[in-house]
């Protein structure tokens, strides 16, 4: 059933791997894609990933720096996988504890980890357990509780009857235990009322309800297995002796029981997993353990610190969902890690968060526009850059700044005025063109003007103008074509279609999304919808998406620089330019360390 299972170190050495029968393709590709898209982009909040037709689930072991990955076909829904990975991880750790504690690449290289037998055993157990569970089928009507209710009981009458009957119904529902919210209904048959007749059940429930009310409203929840004592009993007397006082509360989120929302039911989360064992020491020396090493981080330790960091990030204008995803990812990365001596939880978490922020802001590919322009020059074609974004973010201003920068570096620029909607757009670009030509007069550059404007007035089709502009640039041997488009809201479907058509038809070398640094949670929505539109309306298999981001109006924010994080996190694309003012010189590139410093500052 599984395609592959691999255990490798964070340094990249595979300790052990398993390839399913009949699977020919190597798993290196999908696992590398997993590492690059998820772990390196700090999206490890959810532990599954889809790559083409395979679904991958993974688990990080931060104490020994290992990663466990399992892959299976997308179409299969294997329910045992999560628990299976956990079991494998525990078994591997137990078996090779001595070797793993040594740490160091030499240990990994010299040891061979013969894990095949254990793995097969755990796999068989997992498959069997899922098979026994999966034979549960839908209850027939006779088995459902509705058939056990009398018609009279379902009629609501004022007074005691209703209360009793509702209590009866309620206790019946309380019998359906709930260890996990999913899979629902599968466990109900295990401890259901299989051996008892209908009247006995109602009688029992009435007793239980009365007892519950006399015992008081505050009762401790208990694990459902206590209910098993009731099953198969004889008369009611025996049953009374066996039954314990703590009833089982039901969770409101279970389907089918939502109408039992009266004040007697309390929704409780499933019991938390047992906390990981900390090294020795009683509760009294816990605080000392926090100071002197070998304390491994647990979710509870990190929770308050991460909450505070999340609020801090949100206060610095990072989008709310991005901040929470980032904090989840950092929690996953640090869980189980052993802290060094004299380091507090807060400092470890802050350091990890800082590292992930720097990592997010580092570009994932080389960003060197000048070199790419030179490359296009050598191929005798113009380098086309398209600017898109919502209204009023500064596309035309930054386009002018970028053309100034390109002229300073010795290239000739053609500006294509594809904003045929906004009044004054073409005139604005013409003014910029005149100014730039005044700054770099044609006499100094071999008689040819360095900047030219290609415009066809207002009201025409933008994609057509762009195509003509590019053809003109090729004929006249311009080095760069800068295409200015009209600002549009991301919800405006026809305009988004028009933009997608412009980009799909003209295939620019670089699609830059212009966004202002003042934007907050909106950034996520804008980028997602822009990318979606570009992907949907493209005919080819590999649609052109946003390649880079221009962050404008950076001088208007002091240190609330969170928009940079939101935008890079959502798209995974680098911030190519930062606009810091309205003159031609106000164009910078992003300094990741400075931005992260401003973000983490108190």
């Amino acid at each position: 059933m599984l395609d592959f299972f691999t255990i490798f170190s964070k340094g990249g050495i595979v300790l052990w791997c398993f390839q399913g029968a009949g699977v020919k393709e190597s798993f290196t590709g999908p696992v590398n894609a997993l590492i690059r898209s998820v772990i390196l982009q700090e999206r490890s909040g959810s532990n599954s990933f889809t790559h083409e037709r395979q679904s991958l689930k993974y688990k990080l072991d931060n104490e020994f720096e290992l990663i466990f990955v399992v892959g299976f076909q997308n179409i299969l829904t294997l329910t045992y996988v999560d628990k299976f990975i956990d079991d494998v991880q525990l078994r591997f750790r137990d078996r090779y504890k001595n070797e793993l504690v040594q740490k160091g690449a030499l240990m990994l290289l010299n040891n061979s980890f013969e894990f095949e037998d254990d793995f097969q055993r755990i796999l068989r157990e997992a498959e069997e357990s899922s098979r026994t569970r999966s034979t549960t089928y839908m209850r027939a009507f006779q088995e459902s509780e509705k058939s056990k209710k009398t018609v009279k009981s379902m009629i609501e009458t004022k007074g005691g009857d209703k209360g009793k009957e509702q209590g009866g119904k309620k206790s019946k529902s309380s019998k359906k235990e709930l260890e996990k919210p999913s899979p629902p209904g599968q466990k109900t048959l295990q401890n259901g009322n299989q051996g008892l007749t209908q009247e006995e059940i109602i009688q029992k429930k009435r007793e239980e309800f009365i007892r519950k009310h006399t015992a008081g409203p505050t009762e401790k929840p208990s694990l459902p297995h206590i209910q098993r004592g009731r099953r198969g009993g004889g008369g009611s007397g025996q049953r009374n002796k066996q039954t314990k006082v703590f009833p089982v509360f039901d969770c409101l989120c279970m389907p089918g029981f939502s109408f039992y929302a009266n004040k007697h039911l309390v929704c409780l989360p499933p019991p938390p997993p047992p906390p990981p064992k900390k090294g020795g020491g009683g509760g009294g020396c816990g605080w000392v353990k926090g100071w002197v090493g070998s304390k491994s981080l647990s979710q509870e330790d990190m929770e308050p610190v991460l909450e505070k960091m999340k609020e801090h990030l949100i206060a610095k204008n990072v989008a709310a969902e991005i901040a929470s995803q980032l904090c989840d990812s950092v929690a996953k990365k640090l869980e189980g890690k052993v802290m060094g001596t004299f380091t507090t939880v807060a400092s470890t978490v802050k350091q990890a968060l800082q590292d992930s922020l720097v990592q997010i802001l580092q570009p994932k590919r080389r960003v060197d526009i000048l070199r790419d322009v030179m490359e296009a020059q050598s191929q005798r074609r113009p380098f086309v850059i398209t600017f898109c974004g919502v209204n009023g973010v500064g596309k035309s201003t930054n386009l002018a700044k970028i053309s100034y920068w390109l002229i300073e570096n010795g290239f000739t620029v053609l500006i294509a005025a594809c904003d045929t909607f906004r009044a004054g757009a073409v005139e604005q670009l013409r003014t910029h063109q005149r100014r730039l030509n005044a700054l770099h007069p044609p006499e100094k550059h071999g008689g040819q003007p360095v900047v030219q404007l290609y415009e066809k007035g207002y009201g025409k089709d933008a994609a057509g103008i762009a195509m003509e502009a590019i053809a003109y640039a090729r004929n006249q041997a311009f080095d760069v074509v800068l295409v200015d488009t009209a600002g549009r809201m991301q919800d405006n479907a026809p305009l988004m279609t028009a933009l997608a058509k412009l980009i799909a038809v003209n295939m620019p070398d670089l699609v830059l999304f212009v966004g202002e640094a003042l934007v907050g949670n909106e950034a996520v929505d804008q980028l997602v919808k822009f990318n979606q539109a570009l992907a949907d309306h493209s005919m080819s298999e590999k649609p052109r998406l946003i390649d880079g981001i221009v962050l404008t109006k950076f001088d208007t924010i002091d240190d609330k620089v969170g928009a940079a994080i939101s935008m890079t996190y959502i798209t995974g694309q680098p911030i190519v330019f930062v606009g810091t003012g309205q003159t031609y010189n106000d164009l910078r590139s992003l300094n990741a360390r400075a931005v992260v410093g401003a973000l983490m500052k108190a």
Partner: protein
Amino acid sequence: MDERSVGGDMGGKEDAKMLENTVKQFIEYVRKQVEEQDPVFLISVVVALAAIIITCVFLKYFLTSKTVRSAVLLVGLCDSGKTLLFSRLVSGKFKRTQTSITDSSAPYKAKSDKGTTWTLIDLPGHDSLRAQYLEKFKSAARAIVFVVDSAIFQKEVRDVAEFLYVLLTDSVICRNTPTLLVACNKQDITMAKSAKLIQQQLEKEFVFLGKKGKDFEFSQLPMRVEFLECSALSNKAEEGEADIKSLEKSLAKL
């Protein structure tokens, strides 16, 4: 105290005099105490103070002294074969590898007469991690092995050149001038470019990056640069020896 006048301008001088007096008195007091005390006690106090001062001096010296440069770094673009090369050099074995997300280090004994042991450190090549790991290890570098994927070099030439350029223009590296070994890996693939070709291509790229306009040659650099060919994966895939003899020879010459 009739000498003390109430006038303002005289007050300052009086204060200074009083301060002087108190200081003198204090010194007298200390001297008397010291003379009265047991000489053993005095000696122990002096020894303790001296010990503290010496410890402070030593700590300062050791903590701020330059780390002994005994590391050989394996750097390069993603998927160039660094981790496999690392495994081959350290243990000679073939191991399957994935994209590294942290560094790995192990001692490496050079195959020379002296048999010096270096620390071989394999850094992740992914773009978002490169900079921070280089930052961490560059000051300890005695030599840098820059691994290049010779088979797809033509497509990646600009990325390779930019990384190498960043490496060579780094201030710490310019100061320490570690030996640079450019290992053209994956020579077992038939399409692999030779080391000479790669050197020429990189020199041409550096002309663009340096923006100085004149030709660039690796021999112009202050550090020793050597181009060599190797193959971490031999022709018979997993079994068989890897062809890393030239790399080992160069490492022995360090």
